[in-house]
């Protein structure tokens, strides 16, 4: 009954109710769209991070701590085989590949630059990592070839077919140089990759470093969500095999990941708070007005035996009803906004990125939850004070009000 009276009171002044619903649903809709955009962005960041690092990587325990001491931290053939055997037992593992990373100086004529090199197996590429812009990618069987980032190529004035010189410290600490032919130039996801990274066949990297070892096994899994469970099993098996290796998952490897994602989470939080406050104060004003107009009715209800907390509940229900209707309407508004954005072809430039990416709003039932909660919470909170005020009125004073 209380809810029925509340509902009728809500519908009593259609203009005011429409105004309230417009405010709540616009706020909710906006929040739905913004949070859909943020989840699109963070999903994208997650995806490209995993593309860059794999789901997890396995290396000598010491490598993670002191990567520069190459003599003791590389994995030689036997350990690699033992780890590989463990990986082969896991059905979630879709692939793994050995890497050998190095830092060196790259030179072309009088131009030189710092280079982060990655030795990869062209026959077993499990990470995308880049897209070839000019020339071609490393092929199985390639020796003495290199593909370099587009910005790095531009800085050095290098084109596919040209030769570059790498100056590098071997694992023993002596100097080595290598002359490599540029097979291709790639486009990376981020600026620092395009300006500093290069890929060579792993045998070439081993020659340059004067080793037969590798430093990491990059592992990819069937699904992102399988990372933690597989990591847990694998950690245990690696420990009991006592191979002196340790695994790290992608989110730990990508040190910037948490930071970037929490920045977007913060932005979303700020937008949510703003909308919460906006809705709260607008609805507070509307409800205060609406309750005040009914002071005499409150007096009558109380005079015939309605308790204070009943009056409080009755008025609070009006706020809650507005929140529910406005919130649900807002999700529809949000879906409309999402469709509009997704078909508008708008784009934006993520920080550190080289190309505009489309602005898309990811819409899922889950992303409706927070906006709905915000809508209901803000209207509930805005009803509390005026409802409390009305419930506390002295009966005679309320009755005397015109």
């Amino acid at each position, binding site marked *: 009954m209380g809810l029925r009276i509340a509902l*009728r009171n809500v519908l009593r002044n259609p203009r005011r109710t429409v105004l309230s619903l417009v405010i709540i649903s616009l706020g909710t809709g906006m929040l739905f769209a913004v949070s859909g955009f943020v989840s699109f962005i963070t999903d994208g960041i997650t995806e490209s991070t995993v593309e860059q690092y794999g789901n997890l990587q396995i290396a000598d325990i010491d490598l993670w701590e002191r990567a520069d001491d190459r003599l003791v931290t590389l994995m030689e053939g036997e350990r690699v085989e033992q780890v590989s055997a463990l990986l082969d037992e896991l059905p979630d593992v879709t692939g793994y590949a050995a890497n050998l990373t190095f830092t060196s100086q790259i030179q072309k004529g009088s131009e030189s630059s710092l280079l982060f090199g990655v030795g990869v197996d062209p026959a077993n590429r499990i990470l995308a990592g880049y897209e070839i812009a000019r020339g071609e990618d490393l092929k199985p069987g390639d020796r003495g070839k290199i593909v370099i980032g587009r910005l790095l190529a531009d800085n050095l004035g290098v084109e596919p077919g040209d030769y570059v010189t790498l100056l590098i410290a071997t694992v023993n600490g002596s100097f080595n140089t290598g002359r490599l032919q540029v097979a291709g130039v790639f486009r990376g996801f981020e600026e620092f990759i395009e300006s500093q990274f290069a890929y060579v066949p792993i045998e070439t990297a081993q020659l340059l470093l004067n080793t037969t070892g590798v430093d990491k096994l990059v592992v990819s899994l069937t699904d992102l969500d399988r990372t933690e469970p597989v990591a847990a099993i694998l950690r245990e098996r690696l420990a009991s095999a006592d191979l002196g290796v340790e695994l790290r998952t992608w989110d730990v490897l990508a040190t910037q990941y948490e930071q970037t994602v929490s920045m977007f989470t913060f932005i979303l939080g700020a937008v949510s708070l703003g909308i919460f406050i906006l809705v709260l104060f607008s609805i507070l004003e509307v409800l205060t007005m609406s309750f005040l107009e009914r002071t005499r*009715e409150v007096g009558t209800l109380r*005079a*015939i035996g309605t308790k204070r907390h009943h009056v409080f509940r009755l008025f609070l229900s009006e706020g809650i009803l507005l929140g529910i209707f406005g919130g649900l309407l807002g999700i529809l508004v949000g879906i409309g906004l999402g469709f509009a954005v997704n078909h508008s072809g708008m784009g934006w430039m993520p920080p550190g990125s080289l190309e505009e990416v489309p602005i898309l709003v990811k819409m899922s039932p889950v992303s409706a939850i927070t906006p709905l909660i915000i809508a209901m919470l803000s209207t509930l909170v805005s009803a509390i004070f005026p409802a409390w005020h009305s419930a506390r009125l002295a009966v*005679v004073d309320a*009755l005397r009000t015109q």
Partner: protein
Amino acid sequence: MTNEQTNPGKDAASVVVAATQLRKHYQTGAETVEALRGVDFRAERGDFVVIHGPSGSGKTTFLNMLGCIDYPTSGAVEIYGQDVATLSDGKLAELRRDKIGLVFQTFNLMPVLSTYENIEYPLLLQNVPRPQRRERVQKLIDAVGLTNEAGRRPNKLSGGQRQRVALARALITETHFVLADEPTGNLDTETSKRIMGIMKSLNENRDVAFVVVTHDPMVGEFARRTVEIRDGLLSTVTQGG
């Protein structure tokens, strides 16, 4: 000037309301208005008291005290022997809900509720189960002649119909104590007579005590007892009826 009304032959349990030495002062700025200046009053089952008095004499103030919707500055009000000053706000609300029926000059119906729902409302407060509610409301609606108006909201009713709804709402709890403040103040003479007639028959058939405040001389015709209020003091005009 003050008189205590007693009705010999009835025991204390039949006393519905008793007020002793009621005073009510209103402070407005530097001025103090003494709306009630020591009033003693008592009403029993089956009483029909009409209180006359000019405007501003303290009628509404007095009735509000008896109805437990306002507090006296001093003095005591007892409802069925219970001193209401000792009751919490919640208990007072229960007392009003269960023991007192109120009728206002301006009807004071809930505009969002139909005739049926307005009358049903006190039973909802009492958590009366639905089948009983339906039966009791329907019976009373028929009794006050609003069978065809059951589904209408107050703004679709005439003044007389509205007051009949209000009367039914006051009586639905089967209270034996109804307070009415100028119940005919907004009605024409014919309608007023009809409303008073309903009250009179409830008084006679069900022993309901009515205390009716008015300055309408016609209402006096229905009284068993008439009391005059002037400058915050009561005096009996007629006794018996």
